[in-house]
């Protein structure tokens, strides 16, 4: 028998962190099986929260994007490494499923299927990665930025720009006192500190959308490299990001979200319309797409 390596697996994971980091935003972390390949930026997992809410009766798993991965497994900055890897995510409490997930206490077990979907491709040596996140979509882009920041990589990948957009300053996560002090939170805060911030109302950073911010940054960018956009956020943002990339003739990859049932490509429920007239499955063909593949305007209908 050839050695078989699981590409995905269903397992009961100990919950390590499930804590608010902004209004209705939660930092979620769970123990990662030591023999399962590490997830990559762009990939996601599904969880099955306990179903408790009267009248809601949720039955579907919830897909959540990885927002970071810590192979050394420190739960907080004071504790020693447990030697067990930790997967991190950021989710927004939006409905009965995520409300139930928010009730899941550290130390309990949660049913996880992971890792799922594809990941962001890496920039080429001649490219500069421009990593753009909007709202709750910042999770995967923080993971991408963290991945490109790793020390053991060729120097060219370190030259990236992170651009994050929020409706207003109060929605910028991780600043609340309640935020935990895990190494991942510290890493996210370092990335946030280096990021170009935009808010719709100008309450912090650039006033306007991230795509408007990109126009400004592009005109002042001294780099001779081609831009390669990496985006995750609300679909209108991805639509205008794609238009921007087309106009500027630069590569762009976007991570998309859609209502999902199976998460593994079997049911064809989570599709998005493509520019060639068909559909692609977010779970199995994505969630990361070459931005030109998806008809974002049609997907907004």
């Amino acid at each position, binding site marked *: 028998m050839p050695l078989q390596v699981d590409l995905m697996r*269903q397992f009961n994971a100990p919950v390590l962190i499930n804590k608010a980091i902004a209004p209705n935003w939660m930092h979620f972390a769970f123990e990662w099986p030591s023999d399962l390949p590490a997830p990559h930026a762009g990939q996601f997992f599904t969880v099955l929260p306990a179903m408790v809410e009267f009248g809601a009766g949720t*039955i579907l798993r919830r897909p959540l994007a990885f927002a970071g991965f810590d192979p050394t497994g420190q739960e907080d900055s004071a504790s020693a490494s447990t030697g067990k890897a930790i997967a991190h995510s950021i989710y927004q409490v939006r409905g009965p*499923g995520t409300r139930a997930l928010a009730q899941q206490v550290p130390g309990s077990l949660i049913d996880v299927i992971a890792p799922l979907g594809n990941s962001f491709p890496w920039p080429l040596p001649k490219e500069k990665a421009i990593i753009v996140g909007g709202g709750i979509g910042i999770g995967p882009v923080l993971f991408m930025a963290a991945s490109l920041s790793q020390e053991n990589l060729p120097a060219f990948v370190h030259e990236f720009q992170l651009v994050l957009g929020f409706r207003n300053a109060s929605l910028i996560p991780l600043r609340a006192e309640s935020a935990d002090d895990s190494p991942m939170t510290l890493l996210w805060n370092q990335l946030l500190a280096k990021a170009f911030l935009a808010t719709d109302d100008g309450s912090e950073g650039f006033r306007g959308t991230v795509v408007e911010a990109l126009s400004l940054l592009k005109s002042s960018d001294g780099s001779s490299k081609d831009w390669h956009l990496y985006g995750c956020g609300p679909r209108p943002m991805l639509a205008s990001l794609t238009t921007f990339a087309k106009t500027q003739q630069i590569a762009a990859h976007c991570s998309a979200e859609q*209502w999902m049932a199976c998460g*593994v490509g*079997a049911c064809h429920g*989570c*599709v998005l319309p493509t520019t060639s007239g068909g559909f692609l499955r977010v779970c199995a063909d994505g969630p990361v797409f070459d931005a030109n593949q998806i008809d974002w305007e049609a997907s907004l209908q």
Partner: protein
Amino acid sequence: MNEQVHSDIPSIDLDLSVRIGELIMPNPVGVASGCFGYGEEYDELVHIDALGALYTKAVTLEPRQGNPAPRLVETPMGLINSIGLANPGVERFLQEKLPLLRRRRCAVIINVAGSTEDEYAAVLERIEGHLSAIGTQQEERSGVDGYEINVSCPNVHRGGMSFGIDPVLIERLTRSLRGRTARPLILKLSPNVTDIADIARAAEAGGADAISCVNTVVGMVIDTEKLRPAIARGSGGLSGPAIRPIGVAATYKVSRAVQIPVIGVGGIARADDAIQYLLAGAQAIQIGTAIFTNPRTPHEVLDGIVGWMRRHAVKCVRDIGLMLQ
């Protein structure tokens, strides 16, 4: 065509086997069409060969893109879908999907859909022609142990459910398909009818070997902020635990109206749900939406059926229907 299927479950003191036409399934638990693709998607999560049968995603004559997005909305203990029979068409099915299906050790039932009687017939003829052309050695599996005819999809304009509500059309379609294959022919019926027993009798008269009972129930969710239906096509098919009592009642009715076996499907998430279907008269069951919740469900249900049979001292799964008081 007597293709005995062997499961990976070690032989035990119980008889779990189920007969559908000339086909013997190793146990009564199958995975429902549309919820399991063509098997490969769940390969890493589910040990499919331990199950009784895999009912594939629908195959149509031509490739179909399916319906506009969004196609899904969750409801209390249920899921509404409007996928629209998205599939690669029979040619690509034969080239790309069948080779893997031939390696399965559980029974493989090909779900077939069409817009017209001719389309259903053409899909069957194409598959039968392909199987004759490639031939099968002794011990080799064909990958096609039977057909489940989808006359109950609520998510297409023509065909699908419009067949499934008319006993005359059902009998004619079944007879036409009966003439094109010796393999087991299972008609999958819609609960969206006045009297499902009439439809089942028509399928039996046309030569069906079994009835799958039931497909999804037409349903709609309206988004009260966007002021429009939650899925693009408006209404769709409701599945999940919410429809289980509908499926059990239909199974009870149909199994008393026809002599051919009934395969119970609709909202099975636990062994107790499956046993309700078996007590109502089903010979076998299918699990669909609950796989999305937990891919281990079919195995847990099978284990639970075995445990229940031991507790109730039932030796043969086919006898469970006789136990209902």
